[in-house]
């Protein structure tokens, strides 16, 4: 038995060596082939649905030009762009200067920003919460932990339970920058992975407040937001986000290293075309203002 086993083992190990070598060869060949054949898109979970729908339509129109879409978060996508493992990085926040510098350094090309669509950040409360509207300043004091009871805002006498996103999310970064003026969230802000988790938590908690993309805002109540005490309360809708009257809205970006070429360029052109913008609306986002290329930064 053993006498037969030894050569068998030898052959097996030889075979293993051969196969591992051949898979290595394949692994080396694969990225090059993939880069030539498929456009890879990676990043923001907020944008994944949008990017997927755009990719599907694009592939229908351009047979033989595959587009691969993966999520992971804005930061993940940007890291992939820096490392050269993706063609397009989806980001629901603008790239940080440090990240742009890294793209320049590692890829030898500047990061190029392509605004794709607009997204409003809605503020949710439980359906039963009677509060009619909320100002940006009130939101700031709520999320900094200064205002702790709904009574202080004219609501019921119950504690405000804060829900937010994890600090790896573009939504977190945006909200912190534009609503909290870069101050810290209160320590008792409960952070959840994904807007859907926030919506679910708010829907189950009478005293809760949460924030997230309007695209996900189903089953709870989105509170109209006032820019300041004097201005009118604006509900997050297609019109208010597109014309910039809704105070908490942001741009969604696709980033490339250097100016796009080939399939990547074709895909981005498609995304900004009327058909692409319609898909953005269908996915629950808002089209860019018609002045293509120079959209107003509605946030500021």
């Amino acid at each position, binding site marked *: 038995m053993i006498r037969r086993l030894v050569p068998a083992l030898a052959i097996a190990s030889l075979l293993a060596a051969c196969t591992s070598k051949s898979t290595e060869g394949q692994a080396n060949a694969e990225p090059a082939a993939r880069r030539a054949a498929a456009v890879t898109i990676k990043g923001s979970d907020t944008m994944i649905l949008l990017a997927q729908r755009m990719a599907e339509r694009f592939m229908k129109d351009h047979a033989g030009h595959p587009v691969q879409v993966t999520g992971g978060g804005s930061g*993940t996508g940007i890291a992939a762009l820096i490392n050269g493992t993706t063609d397009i990085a989806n980001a629901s926040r603008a790239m940080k200067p*440090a990240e742009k510098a890294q793209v320049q350094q590692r890829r030898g090309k500047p990061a190029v920003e392509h605004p794709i669509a607009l997204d409003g950040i809605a503020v949710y409360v439980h359906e039963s919460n009677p509060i009619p509207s909320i100002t940006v300043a009130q939101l700031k004091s709520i999320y900094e932990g200064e205002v702790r009871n709904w009574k202080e805002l004219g609501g019921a006498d119950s504690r405000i339970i804060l829900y937010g996103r994890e600090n790896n999310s573009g939504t977190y970064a945006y909200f912190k920058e534009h609503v909290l003026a870069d101050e810290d969230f209160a320590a008792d802000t409960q952070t959840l992975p994904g807007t859907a988790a926030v919506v679910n938590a708010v829907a189950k908690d009478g005293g809760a407040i949460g924030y997230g993309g309007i695209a996900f805002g189903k089953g709870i109540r989105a509170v109209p937001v006032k820019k300041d005490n004097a201005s009118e309360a604006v509900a997050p809708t297609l019109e208010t986000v597109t014309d910039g009257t809704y105070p908490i809205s942001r741009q969604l970006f696709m980033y490339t290293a250097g100016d796009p070429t080939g399939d990547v360029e074709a895909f981005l052109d498609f995304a900004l075309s009327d058909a692409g913008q319609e898909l953005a609306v269908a996915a629950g986002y808002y089209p860019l203002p018609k002045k293509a290329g120079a959209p107003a930064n509605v946030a500021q």
Partner: protein
Amino acid sequence: MSRSRTPIVQAEEEAPMPATRESGLELVAAPRPATTLPRYARRRAVDAFARWIIAAIAFTAIAAVALIFLFVAKEALPVFTSPEVHEEVTVERMVLPQAWKEGAAPSFSWQPVSKVPKYSLAPLVAGTFKVTLIALLFAVPLAVMAALFSAEFAPPRVRETLKPAIELLAGVPSVVLGFFALMVLATFFQDTFGLTFRLNALVAGVGLGLTIIPVVYTVSEDALIAVPRSYREAALALGASRARTAWSVVLPAATPGVFAAIVLGFGRAMGETMIVLMASGNAAILSADPMVSVRTIPATIAAEMGEVVVGGAHWSVLFFLGSLLFLVTLVFNGLGGWYVGRLRKKVGGTA
């Protein structure tokens, strides 16, 4: 390889043959001593070879653990050495309470994405231990009692279904348990106890307890079954009831095994990520209250790793947290193992 050797072996086999033939035991006995010697040598070589390979495989597993730790520790090293990282964070600032704003009282705060990044470890370490403790307090009594029942009282038929059924719980993916804790347990606890925070350490701890019940149960049950029959017979012969025998004789005799089970469960609870990420609320609050939200080390690593700048201060701190978790589990497992050994000696001495 073996083919080239074969002729030499045959030559050796044939050489002593004439001598044995002369002894007169021609047909049966004669070839035997001739062939066994070289065959034995070859078998010994194969044996040594196999032993070597098996040892290599065993050490690969150990080497994997060591290399993983080395990698994690290497990424954490800048926390101690890099001046760039020290601009943002130092060990002192991670460990001691800091006055984060001028004039503010010193406090612990975990706010890594901020104008002034705050990396206090205290809320995370305390949170991890708090959730683990709740999980153990919930799971250990349940699991040990269940083990006692199935080892001492359950009819064989019941035991045969009970044991695999509980062990099946170990196969439930932790995401599913996390989902259960998030959707069902959280609502149940809030409605029952009127809690302010729906997601809190208690919910996460109980959810975590569900994952360690099967571990603690299986190992304890094996330990209880292994208690010699003579102990039970002696106790029963002295007039003790079955319950008394189980509680005062069998359970104490199985203490080392039960303790080992608890140590295993502790390690599992400490490192579990998904359930706490989903059900704990992840707010880094330093508090002994089990009813407030809590942020644990594994959940922090899982939630924040995706965003950080590779090689930056935040990155290094997350790896530092990983090494810390690794070391804590290692130390507690080591201490547990040492204590189990001591208990075993103590209990074994009376056997």
